[in-house]
């Protein structure tokens, strides 16, 4: 059974459609990444799952129950984006306050708070006022408060925001540990590299729609691509390579050849050799998640532009009539 089960979820803010018929399933024990630009609808979806925001239509279930119920929230941890902890608390007192809201008894709280602050590297500053914390420390505290009460599902909205590279690595390791303990972790981020490094599965969201889902490996292995540099003065035979069925793109320094399934780069290299074109460099460039993401966003943008043009044309035609 999916831990998170969302189908045809829609959220409107007035005339703005923040989520457009989103359908998504997340299985137990995964680190699931939701990737998207700012304003894509990632945070809205998490907030609906936690009952902070009400859905317009569709269905959202968490741990087998309708999302947002009090019972479900007891079993969930959450780190919001742009969180603002009350500065009058210390790290410890804040966790005690939240622990009481979760119904934890004092001995449990004392034990779990000490452990959690130690895990995120804040044990020495637990009794300091939060207003004295740096941004990175607040982020670590935010992560601690998301898991200290032993939740089954943890939602993290931009968890590495404001954290230095060492801290990011530690957070990735912590998430891996939490995953090993059997928890499901749902991460929202616009930092592609972070998602690529920590997530088992990824969904890419653009303008309120899920445009692609899959494992990182599945998403990044879709296209084989080579970058070729010729000796100075040599001109790459673009037309002839294209005639062989390859997709070719050029920039100032390199020519990029994209292979379709069943094609081999040797065919291109043989052609260059037959034309006595001397090679300086041949490099296989594996697509990163960022390439995939940018391609998808561009495709989506082109799609929407085309739609816009079509609409504009239709409107213009009507006016002409």
């Amino acid at each position: 059974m999916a831990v998170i089960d969302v189908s045809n979820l829609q959220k409107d803010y007035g005339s703005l459609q923040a989520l457009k018929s989103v359908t998504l399933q997340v299985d137990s024990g995964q680190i699931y990444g939701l990737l998207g630009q700012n304003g894509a609808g990632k945070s809205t979806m998490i907030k609906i799952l936690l009952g902070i925001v009400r859905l317009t239509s569709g269905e959202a279930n968490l741990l087998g129950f309708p999302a947002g119920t009090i019972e479900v929230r007891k079993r969930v941890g959450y780190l919001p984006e742009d969180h603002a902890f009350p500065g009058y608390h210390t790290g410890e007192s804040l966790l005690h306050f939240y622990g009481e809201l979760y119904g934890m008894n004092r001995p449990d709280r004392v034990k779990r708070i000490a452990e959690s602050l130690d895990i995120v590297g804040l044990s020495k500053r637990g009794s300091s006022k939060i207003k004295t914390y740096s941004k990175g420390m607040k982020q670590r505290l935010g992560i601690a408060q998301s898991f200290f009460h032993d939740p089954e599902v943890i939602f993290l909205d931009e968890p590495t925001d404001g954290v230095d590279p060492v801290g990011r690595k530690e957070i990735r390791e912590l998430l891996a540990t939490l995953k090993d303990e059997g928890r499901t972790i749902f991460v929202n981020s616009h930092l592609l590299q972070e998602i690529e490094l920590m997530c088992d599965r990824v969904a890419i969201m653009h303008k309120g729609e899920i445009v692609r889902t899959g494992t990182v490996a599945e998403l990044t292995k879709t296209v084989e691509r080579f970058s070729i540099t010729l000796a100075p003065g040599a001109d790459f035979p673009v037309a002839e390579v294209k005639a062989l069925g390859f997709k070719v793109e050029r920039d100032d320094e390199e020519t990029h050849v994209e292979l379709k399934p069943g094609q081999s780069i040797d065919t291109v290299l043989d052609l260059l050799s037959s034309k006595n074109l001397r090679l300086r460099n041949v490099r296989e460039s594996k697509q990163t998640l960022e390439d995939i993401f940018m391609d998808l966003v561009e495709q989506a943008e082109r799609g929407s532009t085309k739609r816009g043009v079509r609409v504009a044309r239709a409107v213009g035609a009507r006016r002409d009539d």
Partner: protein
Amino acid sequence: MRTFLAILRDSFREAVDGFVIYIMLILSLLTIAFVACIGYQPVDAEGHLSKSIKNFAVFIPDKGESTAISAVPGVNYEATAIKVNGKDVLFDLEVTSKSDFGLGKAPAIDPFRTAVAGWLKKAYKSEKRKIPAAVLRGGNKGNTSDSTLRDLEVALAPDVSAEEAAAITDEQMVEFIKNQFVAHYGCGDVKVRRRSNPDAGKYVYEVEAINLRGSRGWAHDVSFLHWNIITNNDLPLGLVVHVIEDTIVNGIGGGILLLISVILTSFFIPNMLRKGTLDLVVSKPVGKVQYLLYKYLGGLIFITLVSAITVGGVWFVIGIRSGMWDPRFLITIPALVLSFALLYAFSTVIAVLTRSAIAAMLLTIAFTFGLWLVGYIKKQLDVAKVMEEGNLDTVSSIFDGLNNVLPRYKDLDKLTSKVTSEGAYTPILLRFQDMLIEPPSYVGVLGITFLYIVAFLGLASWRHSTRDG
């Protein structure tokens, strides 16, 4: 309960961190210290007793239980052979009972016995009586033409027959005199013994009044630190203490306390609703409305503590300085809390609608001032109506209407003042007060105020629960 206590502790921590509680406690201690600096010194027995004992001509029928006051002409009270022992006073009370009605004839009925008989009987039902406006103003008795008379609801003294007067016993007369000490001085520990006297129409009593000079009806000089500020006066201690309780503590002090509380607590709800803070809490297993209402209650409990410390402290120092320990003054604590509950509920609605502490603060202050202004103008119009000063019917009905539909902020003050006066005034003074001031109804004042609190919180809860994020 655990959730409520957690949120309460959170609110307390916020108040402590923002120095809110320290500011409030300092103000509270300053108020207590100010009141503690006020001293009360009983005036000399000789002069005051000779003057004030003459007021015994006025009595309260129905053994002091009636709402009416009455007087029988022809009875004169004199204090002689006055001895003072600390606050106790021993003296001879000479009651001269003569009534010739200006015709030089012997009285048909002994006026003193008539007064005692009237004191034993129930008063008649109330009726309208013409009272000179000048009397109401407490001023010039010469200006009492018909046009200045004003209808007031008064209870009438009972009629007494000659037989009833003649049947009065010595014991009943002694009880009457003892009760007069309660009615006029608030002094209940009095030993009265009739001394034989050969003169007709004259009664002599040996009186030993314990703590008479410390009683609430005894005039006191008032000092601040060691400066005398009121001396050689006839102001009873209870009246002075009530002015301090009602004006300085419930009036000015309460007003300042409420104003500062409104300012300081106006940040609580908007801080809670800040982006990034609310999400953290409402993602926990606590309802949005529950959290809002608990935060509201947290603010209320905080003010209850401050009010209890202030009013309790003032009550204690007044008790120490004056010997008046009547607990009815403590009603000021729930009254202040109720006033604050109304203002804080309004502040909560504004905070939820605007999410701005500044808007919540300024609009709540404006709301408070508006309610106070309506109450104040209504009070002035009521006085003007009694005095028949000008034709104010239209304006008066507008403000009566406004006062009826708006929360009774000022009326709550009046009710509090009435209750605290009952703990400070002598019974005779209370009867005069009740004749002149018609108190608002408890049901109306408390009912409307509670309705507004519920309506404000209901609106805030609805908006908060239906708002995304």
